[in-house]
């Protein structure tokens, strides 16, 4: 964002300016993750358009319904704010994806509350589970609710508006000392699922834990994520959307764009900037600038999807 940009649009709102600052922060995080910050394709003028020109869908993540610790004593309230924000979008998204940690402790009441609030957006929601969604004794509450017509621990794919979407599960059968895990069965399914598709089909892969290695010391990565990316490398446009780390990070590698979304519940520290990845307590007036939703717009024929992160406040 330059001064000339500001002059060009004298009606620039405070929200837009802060969104811009958020992206600047994202750039800093790229440096930390060691990725190549090729962001121009993502953060061009299209991102400022009030009306997205292509088809758009929405990502929310890490709602942690039931969380009530100091980092955000009212995670239900901030989820409600996020849903209100979605309802007020000028162009209605086609659908929504939720990249896991719907609940904090997998309690029936938490799943009920999450459903009641998220359904108010009036959109179809495609879920993948986070590790916090499999904590009930029988590990059945998530599957009963969201696992219908899925394989294994809850993976599946679907097509929408010419884009192939793949929801993966990398939060089960985790090994001591390791990271997120997809496992042989799921990797074999993914190869089959992608098998017959034309390389020009845009692919969106979503999973809870980042599929790329963000910060292994905190477990922020997926042990066999590279094998999933191997199956994806022949495709011209691949977008990988994750949650889990409660902050925006982005990286582009060849045809693959990686992106992690903010939580709607509480922020987590930048990699290595705190003793642990635990919930980060920030001043009350700053919390909502670190929570939010992600709007993804795709224009057929464009290589990359436009990904816009919107904080709850700012």
């Amino acid at each position, binding site marked *: 964002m330059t001064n000339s940009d500001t002059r060009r649009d004298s009606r620039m709102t405070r929200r837009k300016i802060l969104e811009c600052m958020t992206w600047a922060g994202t750039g800093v995080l790229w440096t930390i993750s060691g990725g190549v910050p090729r962001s121009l394709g993502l953060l061009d003028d299209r991102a400022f358009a009030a009306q997205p020109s292509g088809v758009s869908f929405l990502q929310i993540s890490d709602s942690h319904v039931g969380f009530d610790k100091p980092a955000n004593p009212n995670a239900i309230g901030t989820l409600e704010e996020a849903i209100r924000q979605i309802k007020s979008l000028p162009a209605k998204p086609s659908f929504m994806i939720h990249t896991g940690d719907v609940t904090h402790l997998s309690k029936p009441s938490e799943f009920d509350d999450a459903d009641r609030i998220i359904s108010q957006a009036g959109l179809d929601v495609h879920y993948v589970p986070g590790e916090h969604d499999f904590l009930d004794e029988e590990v059945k509450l998530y599957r009963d609710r969201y696992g219908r017509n899925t394989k294994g621990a809850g993976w599946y794919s679907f097509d929408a508006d010419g884009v192939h979407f793949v929801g993966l599960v990398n939060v089960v059968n985790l*090994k001591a000392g390791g990271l997120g895990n997809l496992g042989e069965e799921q990797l074999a399914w993914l190869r089959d699922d992608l098998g017959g598709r034309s390389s020009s089909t845009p692919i969106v892969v979503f999973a809870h834990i980042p599929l790329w290695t963000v910060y292994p010391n905190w477990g922020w990565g997926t042990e066999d994520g590279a094998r999933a990316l191997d199956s994806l490398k022949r495709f011209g446009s691949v977008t990988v959307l994750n949650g889990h780390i409660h902050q925006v990070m982005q990286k582009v590698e060849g045809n693959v764009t990686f992106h992690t979304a903010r939580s709607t519940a509480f922020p987590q520290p930048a990699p290595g900037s705190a003793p*642990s990845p635990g919930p980060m307590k920030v001043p009350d007036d700053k919390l909502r600038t670190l929570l939010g939703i992600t709007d993804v717009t795709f224009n057929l024929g464009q290589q990359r999807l436009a990904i816009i992160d919107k904080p709850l406040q700012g």
Partner: protein
Amino acid sequence: MRMILQEMSSALMRTFLLGAAVAVVVLISLHAGKGAAADPAPVDVKIDNFTFAPQRLIVRAGTTVIWRNRDDIPHAVASSSRLFKSKALDTDDTYAFTLTTAGTYEYFCSLHPQMTGTIVVEDQIGGNAMH
């Protein structure tokens, strides 16, 4: 037995029950073949800042290890050999497991597997446990 109990004063009864409890403990100890006079005191492992502390713990056989979660995020304790596994522990929840046989036990958090810990169980502290 019921008649005898009914005739005893409550003080006597407490003594009787305590005696019975001690007898049971002694019997269990003998049965385990330790021949120890008393069970070792429980030992705490603190879960804080996504780490187990102490990360490596050396205890005598028969020690109950108590994990307590001090984080604002749930954790779960799982033995790598599947000998023990806790449910998810919310803040300040505890999980206890008694390790009766000498050996080295690796465990981790099944939610955050980068968190690992080791318990070395020895027949006698400083003795030659089989590792």
